[in-house]
């Protein structure tokens, strides 16, 4: 039987080779065939989860609830150096200096990454802004979001904080952060489905000790992950509870 492995579509494109290397490492370590499936948007990934087609997922926090509470997945690990934090930016020439300076009919540029959009929407609430009195323009990637701001086509942009940090200095200089989230407990997680439950503890150990071998470190480097931190079930339940409170409006 070939296991099906999917990664959340919001991975940085330059990590694609890294995920294939990781998949090869997983196949050798587990001694079974694993097919790495890439999805180009969150909807098609969700459909695959809903129709029970996946056994391993590197999941956006937004999909964690569906995977764990409905599809009986269990969390394995998260990347030590990666957290999902959002930042809201304007073009440097934009008159807004604070979130509270924003007015109804604000145009927002964002990608389709669901947790970042949710955090962005929460961070504009202090200006009494919400989905009903703003206009959301969905872009293919963060460079396009930045372009919307620089061209004056959007007032604010929602970014993954890391994605903003990795823009070129030239672009960054023309953008101004209005607010940056510091939530610290929302992160992507590697999760395993029911067929892997009997190997769960073994898999967690393999992942969390990956950085102790030279080969393992090479694989992690390709993914720009410093090491995998094991996640216990209650930690992921806690993150899901937190996400649940944020989705209520």
């Amino acid at each position: 039987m070939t296991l099906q492995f999917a990664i959340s579509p919001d991975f940085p494109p330059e990590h694609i080779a890294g995920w294939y290397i990781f998949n090869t490492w997983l196949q050798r370590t587990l001694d079974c065939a694993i097919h790495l499936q890439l999805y180009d948007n969150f909807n098609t990934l969700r459909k695959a989860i809903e129709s029970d087609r996946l056994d391993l997922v590197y999941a956006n926090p937004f999909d964690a609830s569906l995977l764990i509470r409905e599809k009986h997945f269990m969390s394995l690990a998260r990347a030590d150096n990666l957290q999902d934090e959002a930042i809201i930016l304007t073009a440097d020439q934009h008159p807004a200096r604070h979130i509270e300076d924003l007015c109804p009919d604000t145009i927002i540029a964002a990608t389709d990454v669901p947790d970042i959009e949710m955090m962005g929407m929460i961070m504009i609430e202090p200006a009494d802004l919400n989905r009903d009195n703003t206009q959301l323009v969905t872009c293919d990637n963060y460079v396009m979001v930045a372009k919307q701001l620089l061209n004056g086509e959007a007032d604010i942009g929602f970014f993954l904080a890391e994605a903003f940090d990795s823009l070129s200095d030239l672009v960054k200089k023309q953008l101004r952060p209005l607010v940056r989230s510091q939530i610290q407990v929302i992160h992507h997680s590697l999760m395993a489905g029911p067929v892997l439950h009997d190997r769960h503890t073994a898999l967690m150990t393999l992942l969390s000790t990956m950085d102790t071998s030279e080969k393992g470190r090479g694989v992690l480097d390709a993914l720009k992950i410093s090491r995998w931190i094991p996640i216990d079930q209650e930690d992921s339940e806690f993150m899901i509870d937190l996400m649940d409170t944020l989705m209520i409006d």
Partner: protein
Amino acid sequence: MQDMCPRDIVGDYTEHRLRYFDGSQRTVLVSETETPYPEGRLIVSRTDLDGVLTHVNQSFVDMAGYTKQELIGTPHSILRHPDMPRAAFADLWQTVTAGKPWQGYVKNLRKDGGYYWVLATVIPNVRQGRVVSYTSVRRKPSRGKVEEHTALYRKLRMEEDQ
């Protein structure tokens, strides 16, 4: 819960006697100093089924002004401000014990007598089909909503006092 201590209070204050749901009483000391909501943060706590704190995050500790040790094991009502109407918390408890999420604007009392406003969401935590605890996550409210609720709660308090 212990009475609040004049030594901990910053600036002028007034004294109030609060009677809690369980019948206990406590003297709280209240100043007019507002602490602004910390930008980009969420204030998170978890309680057991009786509303006793079992988890607080760093933003909670920073805003409440108590140490983590002082908070864990203490009823959540340690933050109750005398300007909050009973009706708000009655609604909160009625909603979450019915298994539903509650959302509302809350003025909280700090250890130093000051206050801070939040938009709070409380949800029941369900494990294996049973509610085992409650989680509350607070975010920054808009000024307009704070002003609206200041007036609304004043009116409700006056009705409750009659």
